[in-house]
């Protein structure tokens, strides 16, 4: 289980469609080198001046969520391709150019993830990465969000169909 630092929780990435942001902007520095995009928290984002507003009760949390709106500007669908010690690599498809199907590799620090996303972090897992604006109590700030998809499980019928398909196809293959 990777260790998440206190500041990582303050990055404000929430899970399953909800979104929370620190009192100050949850902006990221995004730099692109060849096909690899590195994302690091902004210096002004993790300093001592940044304080997260943590709702204490369920009703406060609900109230806070109701006041928070996320407006995505750009979205990617990603597949986890590699797990590193303190990061993971995702093969990302720009959803605005989905039909082209080309992938870029992006390295995400594990500190960008909330604790409850960690069990879903496996090679092959699917997630969506959105960058845009979070509007909290009328204040707009730059923000980024990672949401892992909760996929259905393989069913017996699917596996049997696939096995039949593979068996039929392999019978048609011959070798010189």
């Amino acid at each position, binding site marked *: 289980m990777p260790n998440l630092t206190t500041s990582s929780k303050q990055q404000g990435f929430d899970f399953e469609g909800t979104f929370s942001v620190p009192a100050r902007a949850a902006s990221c520095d995004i730099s692109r080198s060849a096909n690899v995009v590195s994302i690091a928290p902004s210096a002004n984002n993790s300093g001592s001046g940044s304080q997260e507003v943590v709702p204490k009760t369920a009703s406060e949390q609900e109230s806070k969520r109701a006041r928070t709106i996320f407006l995505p500007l750009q979205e990617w669908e990603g597949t986890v391709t590699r797990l590193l010690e303190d990061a993971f690599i995702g093969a990302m498809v720009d959803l605005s150019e989905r039909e082209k*199907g080309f992938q870029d590799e992006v390295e995400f620090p594990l500190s960008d993830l909330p604790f409850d996303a960690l069990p879903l972090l496996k090679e*092959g897992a699917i997630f969506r990465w959105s960058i845009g604006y979070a509007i909290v109590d009328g204040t707009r700030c730059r923000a980024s969000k990672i949401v892992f998809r909760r996929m259905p499980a393989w069913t017996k019928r*699917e*596996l049997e169909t696939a096995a039949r398909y*593979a068996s039929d196809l392999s019978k048609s293959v011959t070798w010189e």
Partner: protein
Amino acid sequence: MTWGTLSQKQPDADQLEITLIGPGQGECCIAHLGSGRWIIIDSCRNRQTRHPVALEYFEYICAQANSVILIIATHWHDDHISGLADTLRACTEAKFCCSSALSSREFLATVAPYKERLLFAGDSGVSELFEVLHELDESGRMPIMRAAPDRRVVQLAPSSLAHGYSCEIWTLSPSDAQIDDFYLEIGKLVPKLRETKRRLPSQKTNLLSVVTLVARVN
């Protein structure tokens, strides 16, 4: 990708020419063996047009796709076989060569559940591989040529080539040991009942890679 800097002139009949086209990660290699005989190794697509680059290259230099005599798939990673089925479809006279492990029943059974490309954004190398096998079957171009260590898959006689030399294509891998290791690796990918679906994880190692030798022989 643009073709601006690349010569539009076809290689001369007595020239052996090798052209590498690609984005820097996953390329297509096109070799002219002489007298208008070509081979293609792997495939990728033009990012703008989405067409296989080999076919665009032939169109660019006004060469005929049906003069391709062999297509080799070095391995099954997404970035090396994208557009391979379309290329095979256009190159009607080409034989197909890959490692025997790529169409073994064990391998196909492991990856078949992952072939559904509509599930996620992005291409799937598995879908492309299945499309290639279907195309070979439907167009009556079985059997596949098996890539193995020190195996000659093409031999063109000197009399058939304008440069007067014999031209040979050899595969130098994968070895039996590499194929065994490959089966051990893909064994971990077998989907289990009630296990959460995921995309086929990318393979860290390239155990089935087909090393190819193009040789002009005196």
